[in-house]
């Protein structure tokens, strides 16, 4: 971690002196189990940069901000952040020309849960891409990066899938009823790129679809549609679940869609090419019919 921090500072200092206007990285949070994003514009601030065990925040989403458009930005991206970055280019949301990226070989991070227990971050246990291998500069040792088997990826989804439908409904009813509709999951998502959201809250006071009533049907509506709007895009960076104040297992919804799309449409690796269409923007003539999963009727 310390070597990563040192290198981050060195790279940031050099490039701020040369041509970049802004560096996006992480700095220490208020407590030692926290880390927050840092926006560095001056060379004397560079020492604020720090990568610690809790630097989970996905920085790629900041590139969408209007105030950062047309600036020369340097950004540090972990493996999962880089997946999101590629997805943003893929969906034509950012111009990569004036962005300098430095990859970080992520050793797997930690999180503090609601009971104050510190453990390995859940999302890191599923991570398949800890190293942004395509990048020129990668900070940190590749050997130190976290390694998971591909089977870890959708274990939670499969466990839930094997339950009976009524049980599943009870599970989700219990979890989603906690929702206070703060919309933090939507606001933090690096790939939620719409300026005006179809769903209510935040910047858009649009209650066509969801009103302010505390009503399970609306919680269900919000969470299923939010996840569906990320279908084919979500990179399982875990941001939404991380910020959820009532601990709804949102990645289980996202991952279900990811899992299905992988089975149904053999989604290839995410690339930076703009010509590659997302799975729900594309089609093939021999796609499976609704209700048929991977060629066999759904159990």
């Amino acid at each position, binding site marked *: 971690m310390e070597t990563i921090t040192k290198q981050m500072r060195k790279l940031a200092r050099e490039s701020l002196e040369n041509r970049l206007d802004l560096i996006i990285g992480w700095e220490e949070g208020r407590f030692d189990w926290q880390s927050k994003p840092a926006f560095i514009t001056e060379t004397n601030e560079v020492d604020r940069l720090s990568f610690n065990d809790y630097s989970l925040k996905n920085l790629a989403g900041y590139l969408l901000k209007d105030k950062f458009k047309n600036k020369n930005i340097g950004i540090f991206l972990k493996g999962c952040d880089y997946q999101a970055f590629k997805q943003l280019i893929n969906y034509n949301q950012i111009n990569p020309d004036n962005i300098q990226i430095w990859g970080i070989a992520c050793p797997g991070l930690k999180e503090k849960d609601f009971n104050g227990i510190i453990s390995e971050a859940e999302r890191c246990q599923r991570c398949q891409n800890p190293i942004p291998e395509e990048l020129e500069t990668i900070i940190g040792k590749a050997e130190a990066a976290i390694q998971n088997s591909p089977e870890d990826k959708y274990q939670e*989804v499969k466990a*839930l*899938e094997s339950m009976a*439908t*009524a*049980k*599943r*409904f*009870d*599970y*989700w*009813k219990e979890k989603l009823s906690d929702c206070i509709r703060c919309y933090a999951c939507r606001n933090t998502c690096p790939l939620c790129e719409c300026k005006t959201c*179809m769903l209510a809250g935040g910047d858009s006071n649009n209650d066509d*679809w969801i009103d302010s*009533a505390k*009503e*399970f*049907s*609306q919680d*269900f*509506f919000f969470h*299923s*549609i939010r*996840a*569906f709007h990320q*279908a084919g895009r979500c990179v399982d960076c875990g941001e939404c679940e991380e910020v959820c104040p009532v601990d709804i297992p949102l990645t289980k*919804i996202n991952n*279900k*869609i990811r899992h*299905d*799309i992988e089975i*149904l*449409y053999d989604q290839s690796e995410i690339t930076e090419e703009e010509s590659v269409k997302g*799975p*729900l*923007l*594309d*089609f*093939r*003539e021999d*796609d*499976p*019919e*609704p*209700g*048929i*999963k991977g060629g066999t009727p*759904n159990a």
Partner: protein
Amino acid sequence: MPVEETVNTQREKNNFEPLLVAFCCNWCSYAGADLAGTSRMNYPENIKIIRVPCSCRINPGFVLRAFQKGADGVLIAGCHPGDCHYMTGNYHTRRRFTVFKELLNYMGIEEDRFKVDWISASEGRKFADTATEFTNKLIELGPARKLRDSRWKQ
């Protein structure tokens, strides 16, 4: 027990008439429904048809909103893949709703309550059959209460 008998006993026992909302594409399925009517085929009056310009006009929000506002089942009917009036619309419908149907099922909604089918303008018989089958299925399943908005009144 034959299906018809089950359906009839259920219908009497529950005193339940399902409400089935069908989103029909203007060019095929709506014309198919028309044909079923002009050919004097019988199909249950439980089905309420909403005409849409193309099946890919349908947003998953429509489906959930129908369930919130009292539907017991939702049917999406479009042209057969390859026959879309707008060339590729229903291919997109197919991908979207394959994923969305899986998601609904995963989140605990019985998969039989939501159906996507392809009905062409000449398939009046298929439309009538689909409507009958789906209605019978819904009578078996009983009323859908999981997603209904508690403020909704008939």
